[in-house]
């Protein structure tokens, strides 16, 4: 659906909200989960994103697409969550306590739920590499738009993307070698 008319609108109507959730709901949830690696937080963030979009349509100026606008709100909220004390108490605890041979609850969930081996390995990359891959490979955003979204220079996007690809290729090769050995 073409949402370009929204830049002229003063308020968002219920039909548009529903349409936005139908078109982008899952992608917004995915992006939040990719940054936070927490289902409960991705649930909260996805809800907040659409509420903010609905209540603050004036922040959409039509310079980028509606999808990029939603992704920007998602990113800001996700990093707010990541930086919050609540995140540190709950999520990091989940990561720290099950050290050694135990898998964290989220890691177990990912191992079960990742749709393919490539995505499974994406979640093992650092957050900044995960998100640049998601935006470039999944959302097909041009580098300049990714740079604007992440608020970093285009050159930094290129170098992050390069490193992310290298790392992921290496992880996939290692995984492949391991499976052959097994």
């Amino acid at each position: 659906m073409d949402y370009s008319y929204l830049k002229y609108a003063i308020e968002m109507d219920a039909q548009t909200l529903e349409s936005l959730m139908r078109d982008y709901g899952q992608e917004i949830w995915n992006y939040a989960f990719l940054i936070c690696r927490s289902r409960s937080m991705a649930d909260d963030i996805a809800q907040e994103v659409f509420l903010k979009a609905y209540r603050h349509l004036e922040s959409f100026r039509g310079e980028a697409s509606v999808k990029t606008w939603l992704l920007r709100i998602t990113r800001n909220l996700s990093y707010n969550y990541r930086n919050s004390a609540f995140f540190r108490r709950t999520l990091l605890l989940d990561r720290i306590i099950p050290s050694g041979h135990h898998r964290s609850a989220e890691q177990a969930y990912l191992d079960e739920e990742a749709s393919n081996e490539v995505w499974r390995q994406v979640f093992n990359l650092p957050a900044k590499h995960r998100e640049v891959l998601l935006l470039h490979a999944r959302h097909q955003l041009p580098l300049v738009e990714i740079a604007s979204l992440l608020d970093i220079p285009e050159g930094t996007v290129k170098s992050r993307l390069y490193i992310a690809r290298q790392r992921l290729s290496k992880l996939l090769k290692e995984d492949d070698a391991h499976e052959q050995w097994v």
Partner: protein
Amino acid sequence: MNNGSNPEWYDALKLDQPLRSRTFTDKMAADIHNRALGKPARQAMSWRKRRTLGAVLIAAALCFIVFFTNMPEQSLVTDPPSHAGATGPELDREIRDLLINYRSKTGWKKQVLLQKPLPDNQVIIYSVMPKESGLKDNIYIDILQWKDYGGSKAIGTGVDGWSHMFSVDGPYTYMTVMDGVTMDAVTTVGNMHLFHGKLAYDIDGIRLSDSSGNYWDAETVQSQFSGNYWFAITPATSKLEEYTVAALDKKGKVMGTNKYLLPIAE
């Protein structure tokens, strides 16, 4: 479709969702819909909550008044009064931008020149429109305040607890104080006088002083496209106030002064 320059595994990311299950569920969408279109939380607030909220706001206002009326007289005040008192949680950029651009009909996003914390969980933001907007020489002053509604984050007009307390904008109707220094009409908000103006490039600072010998050094900020600005905040303590505006050079030496009688509306 892989364009050839991307690794072969790129298509797996493009074509498949990260997870097998659909996690943005119909129930979640229905909840969002209900929250967005449901009865506003403010109306749904119980009388008891409203009473508590009223008490909190009155207490905050009293603290603000007490702070300024009990402010000790100082002969040297290098910082504006804004540095004293409680400040709210850090204001994130997205929320700030949402609030200061709220109701903006121009379509342009303001460029923030200066952001300073004030007492009582407030923050003052000075901004201008970008050159492309054609609205040069407009200074916008916004004051946002953090409001804690006792855990009920949905209640209130702001985003994440921040709400708009004050906003002023308009053409820059300046007066020339002296060569190279202009000053816009002084704005009084609560117990503060807000001074601001523009500076020629060879002037490095502005110092305001009153007849009691108190003085305040202005903050100077270089705009990306419209020269240097100066900003100062003084406490509003009497109905008739005379200030001396002094222009300073790089070493703090006074280059020139002029007196300014502040007209206070009754």
